[in-house]
């Protein structure tokens, strides 16, 4: 298996798949065929969508899948099935949708363990009355499951102040590709027993296991949540302000640059905005604000930046909007270079809208940067439909990736159309790391039943 073509023996076996699974699962775990419509992967519906209600059920399904060579696509709520550009249809979607809720939460420990299907929104509602929170704001925000967030390993703007999922996940329960249930890390703040498998798992996109439960490190809810918006016509006009904000002696919670700025009312003259979020005690927040207000006018640019302060509810509302920034994008790219080269990323990204021989009207780009980290997200809509126009895009992206790689950077497509990924792979090939990549895959998914990200066109 693995090449996408079905031998007829396989097909016979698949005909039996639902029956075999049914014998292993509670009746509710196996979704009726009609319900699988929204669970298509790579243009084909799975034979079965399975929503186990326990780790044991998930383990039995994966052991079976391993034995029979079924392809299993790990999923949370099904919102990321296009991610990474899987080329191979799934026989089984294994979703955490019914494995939800708090497993263990002791507020005095600042640690919570939750089942993989729990949404971030539900988790934060549990924590809020205890005056605690999980400072993670991944794309899709509160709706997504914690399991999916861990699998994707992607944070949002708060990574600047708190680190990303890797830094806040203390422990994981995962089910390997042959049904082994493995627990990595633990429920304590510091743990160096054994190799750091938790870090390996976070961001592995479900290739190394199905995330059944996650233990997070929590923080006290900030007494104050304040955002300073700095606006200018274009993102490029705000680079000096970015450098200044990133160099403050007390790190901000987030330094996000958006062009166009996606929120009404905008900061002033429209166009781009730099979003500076600071959290903490009233004294530190006041001090931060006054430093910024004094310093920002010295951040020279062609335009005098305009400032606007958002506090409390208004600040949180804006950040909710930013979490949804990727929604509706046809193609989501992440380009990265060292932070001081963010200007190059912006310039090079804008060229994508005016590719020679490209489509008319040109695709629409929106830009959002984790500015202090040198990471630029590019949301593209209106990609060409015709193969030729798409080919121009694929070639341009491939060339850009190479140029970024020469400067120590990278380009990844988080989400995008299959037809583009046939000639531009969403992930870059692993290079010399390939032997390690293959090694850990063999170890944790010996039958290669989980989908692998596409790294070659």
């Amino acid at each position, binding site marked *: 298996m693995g090449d996408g073509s079905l031998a007829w023996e396989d097909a016979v076996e698949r005909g039996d798949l639902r029956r075999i699974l049914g014998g292993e699962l509670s009746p509710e775990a196996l979704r009726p065929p009609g319900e699988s419509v929204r669970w298509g992967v790579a243009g084909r519906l799975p034979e079965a969508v399975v929503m186990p209600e326990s780790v044991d059920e998930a383990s039995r399904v994966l052991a079976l899948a391993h034995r029979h060579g079924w392809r299993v696509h790990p999923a949370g709520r099904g919102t990321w099935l296009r991610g990474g550009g899987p080329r191979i249809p799934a026989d089984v979607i294994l979703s955490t949708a019914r494995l939800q809720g708090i497993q263990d939460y002791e507020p005095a420990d600042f640690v919570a363990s939750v089942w993989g299907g729990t949404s971030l929104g539900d988790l934060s509602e549990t924590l809020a009355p205890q005056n605690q929170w999980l400072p993670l704001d991944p794309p899709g925000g509160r709706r997504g499951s914690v399991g999916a967030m861990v699998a994707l390993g992607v944070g949002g703007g708060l990574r600047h102040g708190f680190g990303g999922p890797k830094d806040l996940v203390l422990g994981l329960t995962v089910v390997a590709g042959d049904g082994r249930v493995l627990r990595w890390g633990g429920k304590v703040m510091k743990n160096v027993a054994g190799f750091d498998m938790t870090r390996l798992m976070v961001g592995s996109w479900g290739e190394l296991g199905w995330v059944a439960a996650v233990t997070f490190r929590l923080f006290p809810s900030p007494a104050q949540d304040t955002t300073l918006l700095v606006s200018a016509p274009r993102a490029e006009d705000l680079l000096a302000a970015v450098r200044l904000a990133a160099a403050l002696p*007390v790190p901000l919670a987030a330094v996000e640059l958006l062009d166009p700025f996606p929120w009404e009312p905008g900061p002033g003259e429209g166009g781009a905005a730099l979003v500076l979020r600071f959290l903490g005690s009233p004294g530190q927040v006041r001090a*931060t604000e006054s430093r910024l207000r004094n310093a920002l006018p010295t951040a020279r640019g062609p335009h005098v930046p305009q400032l606007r302060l958002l506090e409390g509810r208004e600040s949180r509302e804006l950040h909710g909007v930013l979490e949804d920034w990727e929604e509706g994008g046809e193609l989501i790219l992440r380009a*990265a270079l060292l932070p001081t080269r963010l200007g190059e990323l912006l310039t090079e990204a804008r060229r994508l809208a005016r590719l020679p021989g490209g489509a008319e009207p040109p695709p629409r780009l929106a830009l959002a940067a984790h500015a202090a980290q040198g990471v630029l997200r590019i949301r593209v809509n209106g990609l060409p439909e015709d193969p030729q126009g798409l080919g121009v895009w694929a070639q341009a992206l491939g060339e850009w990736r190479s140029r970024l790689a020469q400067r*120590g950077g990278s380009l990844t497509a988080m989400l995008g159309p299959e037809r583009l990924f046939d000639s531009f792979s969403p992930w870059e090939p692993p290079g010399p*790391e390939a032997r390690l990549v293959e090694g850990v895959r063999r170890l944790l998914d010996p039958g290669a039943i989980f989908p692998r990200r596409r790294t070659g066109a």
Partner: protein
Amino acid sequence: MNSAGPISPSLPPPLPEEVLADLRRAVGPRWVITDPDHLLVYEADAQTGHRGLPQAVVLPASTQEAAAVFGCLHGHGIPVIPRGAGTGLAGGAVALQGGVVVSTARMNRILELDPDNRRAVVQPGVSNSRLSAAAAAFGLHYPPDPSSQTACTLGGNVATNAGGPHCLKYGVTGRYVTGLKVVLADGEVMHLGGAGREGSLFDFVGLFVGSEGCFGLAAEIEVVLAPTPEGACTLLALFDTLESAGKAVTEILKAGLLPAALEIVDRNTILAVEASAYAAGYPTHAGAALVVEFDGYPEGLEEEVVQAEERCRAAGAWEVRRARTPEERAALWKGRKKAFGAMGRLAPDLVVQDATVPRSRLPEVLARIDGIARHHRLRIANVFHAGDGNLHPNIVFDRRDADETRRVEEAAREIMELCVAVGGTITGEHGVGLEKREYMPLVFSPGELEVLRGVKRVFDPAGLCNPGKVLPPSQEGRGGPGEGAPDEAVGGGRLPGLGGRGGEG
């Protein structure tokens, strides 16, 4: 090794002349040490209970030289043991079954300091505090701060995923390492990650950090630096009991405050410090001392400090001292940072323990550790990172007393079992090394241990890189690659390396 008494390892067989010739070619004759007197320096780390002489010590100066050394030894099937400053507390850098120690002492250059991107690239032999000192000119520092930071190397920090008092707020080594150029067991040089990259399929940098030299040598380390806070204020709160100090910690965190550090020392530690050359002026009748540090903008610190003071008093502190200037702060910290050095006053030998428990269980765990000490008629001095539940119960003893040594071994195991039973783990920042590998089954199932062995094989198929460390010998006793061979299992059946002293996190 014997289970008690001074340990004098026998001399391992010398390396074949052709291997020595290759090594000398790789690094220059001066940097291959074979003289038994000189090898003695490398027979142990700071936990001196584990000893073993290497067949040679090699000191490469560059990644290329290190790669040549690893390649040569791999070709001859000779184990290689990476070593930094030797401040480790788990026996992780000890040559257990002969082999060659590769010391990073000459790989001590800061290769790149890039303040605009808040990053640096260093060789593994650079000491932790030297990097911070170099970054200070740019208003930056490297946050993980193990107590041994003036000596310990960044390579060693990467190997153990080191922490320190300030990791409560800032996080441990793993959060700061963005890229590594590693020399794998077979001499292959591989570049993992990088600050400007987001496109790696798996986080091999994160996996390599904390791998205790079992995967290879971190030959070039890229780290992020953090801005240095403009102001800091340190409190020393004195309590009658450990329990009330623990309660103050809970109340401070419950109030939504996030100090940069929250450290506790107990009465035995205070007594040791005050009787030593490091006397810090802690009252010797105090049952516990809590150090609380806040950092940030000076004008914004006052309200946090006042709140913390109030919480400490409400929890039973009878005195709260405040330090604002660097000199005053250094004086308050002295009682905490010099605790280990001071314990030499109490007895000739010391077991520096390290475990983490859920923070809410600290009072109960400390009471039970006290019970264990009484039961075994031992003296235990507690120093701990209270904010994150990381304990250092330190047992002082005299290794010449065989009975006492046996009781120390029993107590150490009971403490580990206790910490695991309440939901904690066997090491928070010192690592497993030789010291704790037999405790690994307390926290990992056989299946999980098998996966860890498998991961080791992915990096080091021949099992030559720091063999016998971290992973307990497999139950079957087959001693395959990456495992300790059965005959050297657990240092001849003895428990943790007793003796030695050194820093800690």
